[in-house]
Each structure stands twice: as C-alpha cells, then as structure tokens.
C-alpha cells in the first residue's frame, strides 16, 4: 500500500519536467510531423539560461524563471526559422528531418559545451524548505514546479481544446493551402507553436535543473524518454501526452522503489519497443 502511495506521490513530483517536455514535443510533432531531437536543447538551454540570470546576473531564482523560459522559446523559434522551415520547404523527408534534428542537437549541445564546459553547473537555489505531506517530504521547489506544471498544462489544454486553436493547428498540419484560404496565417501560427513548445521545454529544463543540476547532456537524456512517452500516448494529442507522462512518471518511481533506477529505464525502453510492435507501425 505504501508502495502505491509513494510511487504516485514521487512519480507526480518527478514527472513534472517530463510532462512539460512531452507536451511541448507533442505540439511540434502535431504541427510538422517529424520527431525533433533538437527539442532536447530547448530543455538544456532553458536550464542554462536560468543559470545565466540566476548565477551570472545575480537575479533571484524566482525572477530568473520567466526570462529564461522566454529565451528558450526564442531559441526554439530560431531553430524553426533558420533550419527546419527551409528544410521543410525543400521537401526533406520526415526520416531525414529527424537526422537533421539530431545534427542540430549535437551542434547546439557541443557549442554550449565549448562555452560552459562539460561539468555540472549549479543554480543558486532559494533556501530549501521541506514540507510534510501526508507523511512524505517534498521541497518547496518541487511543489512550485508541480504548480507551474499544472498551470501550464491547464492553459495549454484550454488553448488546444477549448479555443479552437487546436483545430487551426490540425488544419495547418493537414492542409496548408486550405488553412490559408480560411484566413489563418500559417507562418504566425507555426512560430507561435514553436515558441510555446520552447517555453515548455525551457521550464522543463529549469526544474530538472533544480531537482538535480544543469548539465549539457540533460536535454539529450530527457528527450529520449520524452519521445517515448509522446509516441506511446499517440503523438498528436496533447491530452495523451499529459496522461502518458504522468503514468510514465509514476511507473518509473514504482520500478525505482522496488529495484534500481537504471532498471526502471531498461523496463520502460523495452516496453516502448513492444508497444510500437503491438501497434503495428503508425506512430500517431
């Protein structure tokens, strides 16, 4: 019984960066139809932008969050405008778009390493306070992350499912000409989507950064699990990504509690391959 309770609690707390990343990743896939590995760099750079404002400029941690997330969004838009959009316009196939995104991811990541080094960087955290929550401990930052995630997720959910914005994106993804005729500016919508996705990635990075530390490899480590969660959920549905990432978080902490964390990853990866096989091909 404690096992279930603990795994749900820990899973929820630890899943919050994953939830954000999975939603952002899904948005891009939803719109452009390819797996964007460079999305991992939105995560990494989010954390490093926070380090820049927090440690470099001495800003209070809470005030560093917003500009860092916005910068991550801007970076995401830049990758779209300068790399992915030209490639899409040239008719590069989805499987090659992925390779392109992996190339971009390496370029950004090792470009970053050249500036900041490969070592861990620490955020100047505000004083840590522990809360007692039904017999379990959680830090103030974990709770803030969870609250932010809930706010962001609800907003995104509302945007996609209640304002009709989701239908616009879907229309754009399926038929650009049709969308244009109906008076939507596809360029504007695309830029906005890549921006929102980048902000989600940046926030994800900032809060993985608080839980652990900022490291140039963190985005790459998180992107694999993000992609898997999103695909298992059926990429293309923000709702699905939300639930799948929660389930993955809880599952991970459950397996971690009964064995070692690395085994949890092995089990998840194997389950991923089997799920793909059972589904018989279609990603979305």
């Amino acid at each position: 019984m404690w096992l279930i309770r603990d795994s749900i609690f820990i899973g929820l707390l630890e899943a919050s960066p994953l939830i954000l990343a999975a939603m952002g990743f899904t948005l891009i896939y939803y719109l452009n139809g390819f797996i964007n590995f460079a999305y991992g760099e939105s995560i990494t750079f989010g954390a490093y932008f926070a380090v820049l404002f927090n440690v470099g400029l001495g800003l209070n941690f809470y005030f560093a969050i917003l500009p860092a997330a916005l910068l991550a969004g801007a970076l995401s838009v830049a990758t779209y405008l300068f790399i992915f959009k030209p490639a899409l316009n040239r008719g590069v196939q989805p499987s090659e778009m992925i390779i392109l995104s992996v190339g971009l991811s390496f370029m950004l990541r090792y470009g970053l390493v050249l500036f900041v080094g490969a070592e861990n960087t620490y955020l100047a955290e505000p004083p840590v306070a522990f809360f007692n929550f039904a017999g379990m401990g959680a830090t103030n930052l974990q709770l803030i992350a969870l609250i932010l995630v809930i706010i962001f997720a609800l907003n995104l959910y509302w945007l996609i499912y209640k304002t009709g914005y989701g239908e616009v994106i879907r229309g754009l993804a399926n038929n650009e000409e049709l969308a244009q005729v109906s008076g939507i500016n596809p360029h504007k919508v695309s830029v906005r989507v890549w921006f929102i996705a980048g902000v989600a990635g940046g926030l994800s990075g900032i809060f993985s950064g608080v839980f652990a530390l900022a490291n140039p490899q963190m985005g790459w480590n998180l992107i694999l699990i993000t992609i898997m969660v999103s695909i298992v959920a059926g990429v293309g549905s923000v709702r699905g990504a939300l639930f799948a990432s929660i389930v993955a978080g809880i599952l991970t902490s459950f397996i971690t509690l009964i064995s070692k964390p690395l085994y949890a990853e092995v089990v998840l990866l194997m389950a991923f391959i089997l799920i793909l096989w059972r589904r018989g091909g279609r990603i979305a």
Partner: protein
Amino acid sequence: MAYLIFSLSLLLIYIGLAQMLHVQFGLLGIPNFGVVGFWGLGMYAVGIMQVQLDMSFVDAMVLNALLLAAVSYGLGHLILRLERQAILCATIAFSAIVALLAVTEKWMTMGVVGLGTIRQPFRIFGIEEILFFIFLLILIIGIQFYILKLHKSRLGRLMIATRDNEELAASLGKDTFRVKLIAFTLTSAIMGILGGLSAPLNQFLTPNMIVPSITFAVWISLVLGGKEHALGSMLGVFVTFGLFDILIETYAPVSPEFAVLVPNVKLFLYGALLVGVLVFRPSGLLDQRTPSDAVVGTLGRGVLKGAVAIHQGVTKGVATVQGKIEHRKKGGGT
C-alpha cells in the same frame, strides 16, 4: 607509431560500421539509430567471454556472431514492419538498453569499474597490433568489394526497389519483409562482429564507451560521404574520423589546454556539417549516379597525394623544430 596503428585500426572499424549502415539505410531505407548498441553488445560479449569465461578469441568471436545474429533477428522481427520514424526510435531505445545493461549487470560487465584486460588475438610479440590492423584492412576491403558488387547485382536492385517503394515491390512478387529482415540481421551482426574486434583494440571496456556520439559519428560519415553511393561510407569516414581523430589529433600542433576541447569542437562541427549537408546537398558528397571507378581513382590519387604531403610537412616540421632546439642549445651554450 603504436598510437597511429591504433587510430588507423579504429578508422577501419568505423568504415565497417558505416558500410553496414549504408546497406541498411542507403540501400534499404532502414534508419538504424542504434549502431552503437550492436557494436557495444558485440564488444562486451567478446570481452565477457574472454575475461570472465576464459574463452579463446576465435571461439568468442563465433559465439558473438551467433548471439548478435539472434538478437538482430528478434529485434528486426519486432520493428521492421514499422514506419521509418518508429524504427529510428526503437533502435535508439535498443542501444540505450545495451548501454544501461553494461552498467547494471556488474556480475558480467564489472559495471563502471571496467572490464579487462582483453588479450590480442595475434600473439607475436612486437607486431601483434600491426598484424591485427592488416587483418582488419583485409576484412574491410573485402566488405567494400562485396558492396561494390552488390550495387550492380539483382539483390542490390531488389534492395533499392524496396527502399523506393516497398508496397509496389511486394505487388511485383518480392518478399520485401524477408529482404529487410535478412539484410538487417546480417548487417547488424557484422556491426556486432566489428564490436567484437574492437574489444582487443580497446583492451579495457567501460560502459561510457557505448555513447550515442558513436552512432552519430557513423551517421554523419554516411550522410556526408553519400548515403546511396557504394563508396560514400568510406569517403565519409576519411573526411570525418580521418581528418579529426587522426590528422588533427596526431599531427596538429594543439596546446594541451586546447586539446581537451578538440572532441567537443569535433562533435560541434559534425553537427554543423550534418545540418549543412542535409539542407544544402542531401545526397552527400557522392551522389548515387557518380560512377564508382572514377571515385576509386580520384580517391586513391587523393589519399596518396595527401599522404605524401603530410609526410613532407611532418618531416619539414620536425626538421624545423629540431633546428630550433639545436639553435637554442647552441645559444644556451654560449
């Protein structure tokens, strides 16, 4: 010298991996992003069989080949019917599993402590590394010869047709799934064999050798050289690994504090190169329609000229440095 032989042997291993990826992706359109998984599994399997089970190198290699063929066949069965993006993700997941198991299964792999020492297969004192290099060279030339033939063969045509339009090929009576499965099994098993051959090369195995950047280096070589061309993989590895890991690391006068940055600069440039190639010249340096004979000629002349130039440069450099040292000695003397 010993280090150069080691680097050149590693270069050959990379060429082999890129050649296999060429068959998988260039000919058949299977985007295997788990290259390091097959290579790493083969390397660890041979290491474990030699160190923990005290098997001979030949026995270990044979068992390793069978193991890898079985694993690749099983994985191929699961994933080769999927669409390309799904295959890509599943193979990445596979290589991540291999990397994780190398850490967790300490009773076999010794975990992060490392597994060693793996003996050289040719036990002739003094020239064992050179013999091993020559063995690898013959192997890679043999594979390249076969691939050149494959491009002109009925089987190669079937592979290309399967890549171009699998459903149409099936409607013309071709068992495309079987073609993909057998080719994937064979080529992935050879990646594992190349891994097994890397075990005595590296001598001491640690889990952090199984990193995605190896998969990535093989991919950039293939895409840069020309993924659809029989010689693209070889040219690509010369340009990437040959340039960065051999020429620059061995000959470039890099100060020690900058030397630690070289691998990062390399991966940064690999990434930039890959992006550049895919956006501006998707077919790579060699396009499918470049005749192979012309490439062999040019490449051979180029390598020869390059080698001569490097040799001259190095002798000149060494002479200059020696001259300076002697000059300084003289200066100090007076």
